[in-house]
C-alpha cells in the first residue's frame, strides 16, 4: 500500500510534466487545428540551450532557464510565422506533416550536438530528496509539481478572464466569425505557438533533472508520450490535457513500479503504456475524454 501511494505520487509528478507538454499540443491545436509534431525537438532544443548556458557558460541557472524558454518560444514563433502561416488555408493534415519535416531537421541538429553525451542541466536541486509524510520525493519533482501548478493556474486564469483568452476561445470556437468580429487570428496563432514552445522548454527542464540521468539524444522522444495525454484528454480541451497528462503519468509509473508482477507483458512495458491507455480510451470515446464530439451535418 505504501508502495502504491508512492507510485501514485511519482506518477502525478511525472504527469504534471506531461500536462505541460499536452497543454502545448492543445493550445496549438485550438488556435490552428494543427498537431505539432515538432514539439519534441522544441523541448530538446530548449533543454539543450539551458544546459549549455547554465552548465558550460556558468550563467545563473534561473536566468539560463528563462533564456532557454525564450529560445524555445522563438523557435516555435519562427515555425509559426515562417511555415505554418504560409500554409494558411491548406489542409491541417498537410501542415501537421510539414511539422514532421521541421522536427526531422531540428532533432537531427540537436542530436548531432548532444552526440553520445548525457548533459547535465546545472540545476540547484541536484539529486536532493525530500521526505514528506512517509514519501520519498526528489526535490526536482517537488519543484516540477509546484511549477506546473503555478503555470497551469496562471494559464487557466488568463484563458478564462483576459480579453486575449476570450479571443483565443472565440477563435477556437468559430475562427471565421471570430475574425469577422475583429479578432486578429494571426496574433492568436503566434501567441499559441510561442506559449506551447515555452511550455515545452519548462517541461524539458524537469524531464532532464533528477531522477532522470540528464539530457541525451532521446529526451525529445518524451514529447511523444505526451501525445497520448493530449489525445486522450481531447485535443481541443485544455482541462483534458491536464487530466490526460496526470493519467498517463500515473499509468506509466504504476506499470514501471509493478513491473515484476507484469512480466508477461515484457520488459519496459511502461514505455508503451501511454499508448495502450490512449487506444483504450479512444475506442470508447473517439475524440478523447473531454474533446468536442463531431456533429455531422449533411
Amino acid at each position: 500500500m505504501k508502495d502504491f501511494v508512492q507510485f501514485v505520487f511519482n506518477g502525478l509528478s511525472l504527469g504534471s510534466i506531461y500536462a505541460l507538454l499536452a497543454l502545448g499540443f492543445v493550445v496549438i491545436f485550438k488556435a490552428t487545428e494543427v498537431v505539432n509534431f515538432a514539439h519534441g525537438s522544441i523541448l530538446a532544443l530548449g533543454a539543450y540551450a539551458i544546459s549549455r548556458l547554465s552548465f558550460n557558460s556558468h550563467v545563473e541557472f534561473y536566468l539560463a532557464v528563462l533564456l532557454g524558454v525564450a529560445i524555445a518560444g522563438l523557435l516555435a514563433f519562427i515555425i509559426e510565422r515562417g511555415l505554418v502561416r504560409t500554409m494558411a488555408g491548406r489542409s491541417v493534415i498537410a501542415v501537421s506533416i510539414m511539422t514532421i519535416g521541421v522536427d526531422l531537421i531540428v532533432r537531427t541538429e540537436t542530436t548531432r550536438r548532444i552526440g553520445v553525451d548525457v548533459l547535465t542541466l546545472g540545476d540547484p536541486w541536484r539529486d536532493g530528496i525530500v521526505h514528506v509524510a512517509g514519501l520519498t520525493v526528489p526535490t526536482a519533482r517537488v519543484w516540477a509539481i509546484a511549477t506546473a501548478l503555478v503555470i497551469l493556474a496562471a494559464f487557466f486564469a488568463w484563458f478564462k478572464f483576459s480579453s486575449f483568452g476570450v479571443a483565443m476561445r472565440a477563435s477556437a470556437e468559430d475562427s471565421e466569425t471570430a475574425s469577422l468580429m475583429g479578432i486578429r487570428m494571426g496574433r492568436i496563432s503566434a501567441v499559441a505557438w510561442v506559449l506551447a514552445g515555452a511550455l515545452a522548454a519548462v517541461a524539458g527542464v524537469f524531464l532532464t533533472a533528477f531522477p532522470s540521468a540528464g539530457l541525451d539524444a532521446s529526451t525529445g522522444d518524451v514529447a511523444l508520450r505526451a501525445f497520448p495525454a493530449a489525445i486522450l484528454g481531447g485535443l481541443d480541451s485544455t482541462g483534458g490535457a491536464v487530466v490526460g497528462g496526470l493519467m498517463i503519468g500515473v499509468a506509466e509509473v504504476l506499470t514501471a513500479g509493478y513491473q515484476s508482477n507484469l512480466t508477461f507483458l515484457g520488459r519496459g512495458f511502461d514505455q508503451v503504456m501511454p499508448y495502450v491507455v490512449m487506444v483504450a480510451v479512444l475506442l470508447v470515446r473517439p475524440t478523447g475524454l473531454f474533446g468536442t464530439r463531431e456533429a455531422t451535418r449533411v
Partner: protein
Amino acid sequence: MSEVAVSSLESAAGTAVAGGRSGRLSLVARVGMVVLVALVPLALGTIDTEGQDFWLQAGVFAFAAMIAALGLTLLVGGAGQLSLAHSFFVAIGAYAYTYLASATRGTGTTIASSIQGGFGLPTPVAMVGAVLIAGLAGLLFSPISSRLRGIYLGVASLGLVFVGLHIAFNAQKVSGGFNGRDVPDFNLLGFAFDSSPLSVLGVNFTRNSKLWYLGLASVVLAYVYYVNVLEGRPGRALRCLRDSEVAASVLGVNVVRYKAYAFTLSSMYAGLGGVILALAYHHIVPDTFGLGLTVSFLAMIVIGGLGSPGGALVGALFVTALPLLLAKYSDSLPFLAPTGSGGVTAAVAAQFIYGAAVILLLVFEPGGVAALARRVPRLASRLRRPPHPSTQKEAA
C-alpha cells in the same frame, strides 16, 4: 477536425490521381523503363565489378521502400487516412517472413539462435504468408481506424509503432530480441537468391543482383495492382471517402468497410516491402522499424506527391538513395565531415536534405514531384503560345 479539413487532404492529391493520366508516361515508356532497370545488374557487372554491389544493394533497398511507399500513398493520398504506423506493418512483414521461413529449431551455432523458432515453410509460401499476416494486422486495426478520423487516427496509429517495437524486443522466439535474427535466403522453385556463385552472360551475379530481380518484379506487380485498384470501382470509392466521408456514405459507399479495405491493402503492401527489406538486410533488428522508418515513408510519399504511384516510386528512390550516396561520396563532398567526428556527417546531411524537401514541397508544391513533373509539359506549351487565363488559374 471538421469534415472539410479531412476532406481537403490536399486538393492537389486529387489532381495527382484524377489528372494523373495526362502526366503519366505512356505504356511503352513505362515498359521501357522496367527493361532498362532490369539490365542494370548486367551493365554494372561489366563496367564495375568491384563497386557493383553498393549500387545493387542500394537498388534492392529502394525497391523495398517503393513497395511499402505505394501502400502508404494508397492509404494517405488515395483514401485520405493518415497513418503513422507504416513501419509497424513493414516490421510485421519482415518478421513474419523470417519466422515462417526459418527452420523449426534454430540451426545457428550461437545460444541466441538456438532459442529462435520457426515454421520451416518454403520461402515463397512464407512470403505470401507474411503479406497475408501483415494484411490481417491492418484488418485488426480497423476497430480503431473506423472510429477515428484525421489527426486522431494519425496519433493512435503512432502507438502501433511503439507497441510493435516493444513486441519485437521482447518476443525473442520470433524476433531474436535486441540482437535480431538472420533472414533465410529466398528460394524460388530451386533457384536460390543467395550468395552462391552464378554467372550470367559472363557477368558474376552476387546475392544482391539476384535480389534486384526479385525486388523489381515485386515493384512492377505492386505498381500494376495499385493502378488497377485506383482506376476501378474501389479506387473511386476510396477517393470519395477521402474527399468526404459523409458524401461517400450518402452515395452508398460502405465507409467502415472501405476504411478497413484501405488499411488492409496498405498493410499488405507494407508487408511485401518488409519481406524484401528483410532479404536486403539479411539480418533484421527491431531498431530498424522505429519511428524514423515511419517518418521516412511519410517523407517519401510527400516528396513524391500524395496519391501518385509514380511519385511514391521517385520519393522512395530519393529518400533511400540519398543517405547512401552522400555516405559513399562523403570524402569528395567538402561540406561533409567523416562519420563519428560529430560534424555534419553524410547521415546527418541526408536527414537535413529530406526534412527540408518535405517542408519546401508542402509549402510550395503540395503535389510533390508528381506535380512538378506535370508542370514541365505545361511550361513548354506556355512558352510556345501566349498564356491562357485558364492555364494560369490551374497553375495557381
